[in-house]
């Protein structure tokens, strides 16, 4: 449930759905996000620049020349977005992943922590039905949950300076996919050849907040010969 709306400076508001980070809370956030996106498209509200969902909040930015915070807040409060049907807007995406040792950089660390062997860890990961909590930090990077507790591990104490694009990492109950080569501290368990972000496409990010993800294991040869559309 939407608990509180507050101002972020003079051209933003935050819709706060409480302190819980779980699917139930995030689904409420994404319902409002879908509603705002739809309202902007149908010109039900003017001046909205960006709408950024995260685990438990939706941040809305607007153009002060067009609209003021009071009007945006009133629009949200007077709207009945609870009827927005969740599944209509979201999809299931299958993501190929290669768990070869060459790509699973932190498998030893995870085996020690989880007391499971490599195959068991892979099986756990493949069996998880992931949910896209949010996308961001850099373009197209998804934050997926929830891993089962037996796979939980902390971030690396010293982040790697360079992680390859396509690397799949886990920390605590979350899983991410690096969409750009970047530094990072997640436990790397594999790599996908799938290009999750391409600015030239009409929909530049393959995933959207609220989508579902299932990983599919592929061998190295398939990773190397994979062709992105």
């Amino acid at each position, binding site marked *: 449930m939407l608990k509180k709306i507050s101002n972020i400076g*003079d051209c933003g508001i935050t819709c706060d759905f409480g302190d819980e980070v779980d699917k139930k809370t995030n689904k409420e956030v994404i319902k409002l996000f879908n509603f705002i996106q739809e309202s902007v498209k149908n010109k039900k509200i003017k001046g909205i620049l960006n709408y950024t969902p995260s685990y438990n909040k939706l941040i809305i*930015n607007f153009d002060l020349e067009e609209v003021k915070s009071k009007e945006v807040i009133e629009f949200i409060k007077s709207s009945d977005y609870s009827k927005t049907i969740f599944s209509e807007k979201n999809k299931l995406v299958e993501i190929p992943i290669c768990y070869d040792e060459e790509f699973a950089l932190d498998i030893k660390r995870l085996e020690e922590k989880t007391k499971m062997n490599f195959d068991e860890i892979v099986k756990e990961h493949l069996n998880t039905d992931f949910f896209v909590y949010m996308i961001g930090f850099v*373009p197209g990077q998804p934050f997926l949950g929830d891993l089962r507790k037996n796979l939980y591990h902390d971030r690396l104490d010293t982040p790697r300076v360079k992680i390859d694009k396509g690397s799949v990492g886990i920390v605590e109950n979350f899983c991410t996919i690096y969409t750009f080569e970047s530094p990072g501290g997640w436990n790397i368990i594999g790599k996908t050849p799938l290009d999750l972000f391409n600015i030239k496409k009409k929909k530049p990010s393959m995933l959207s907040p609220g989508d579902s993800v299932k990983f599919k294991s592929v061998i190295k040869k398939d990773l190397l010969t994979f062709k992105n559309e």
Partner: protein
Amino acid sequence: MSNYFKILRPGINSTFQDLGRFGFQHLGIAPSGCMDKSLFYLSNKLVGNKASEGALEFAYQGPLLELVGESAFVAVSGKVNFNIINKNGEIKQGASNESFILSSGDKIDILSTINSVYGYFSIFGGFKLDKTKGSISTLVRAKIGSNNGEKLKSEEKIFFNKFSGDVKKNKFKFDFDNDSTIRVMQGLQFDYFSNKSQEDFFSKEYKVTKLTDRMGMRLEGEKLENIKSKNIKSEGITKGSIQVPGDGQPIVLLSDHPTIGGYPKIANVITADYDKLVQKTPGLNLKFKLVDLSIAESAFQDYIASFNNF
């Protein structure tokens, strides 16, 4: 045949910018766009372009460009030291905030911004740039936008649209606000900070450091003590938010900010003072003043009204 500028020197951080790219932050794409909106508007106004036409933004040292083809009607906005070098090698000092005609073979040498960071170079008819998701703005960090998402590089060519019709020379007397007070509203996590730090933030000075770019401005001053939690659950970022990481030194998030972040925010710069803030050079001391929403909104009306003077 074609009209273009040849880049003989790219400058430190020269990119094409317009008002920004919106509606994609939920996919991880930051708004980007011009850092100083007033100067951006002014540069377009001076050459008779529409307000949102893409311009070349430079920081500190700008580019050295040679005009190939026909003449061009151009302007440089800001406080900028630049020269015009004609075909015969004669050097003439340029005047900023004033439109003028460059002839074929002329070079424009943008040497430096004066006691400020950003300036703009605009051309009547606009540069020939393709929009990416509604904007020509370059977001270097994600390699998105004009010039293949990169800063200007030597030897590249900048094409522009041919202009027709009469040009009207325009001039504007422009000066920066030298006052170093930046007005802010309370941030979402203002109550994470100790009473002393809340007071310090509004009474002590915070110095602009060299670690400042289009993404953020790192400040240095009295350590801000977070008494609640060093990290928050990652949430969407708004331009002008002042976040405080574990070391207690504030960072103002600017136009190329990450789209989400997990540090507590003590304050947010009001829109009316954003342009003034981004022009503050490293070494200068800032003072933050707390205002409420109604003051911020009326300051914005004054800020918008000031564009009418251009």
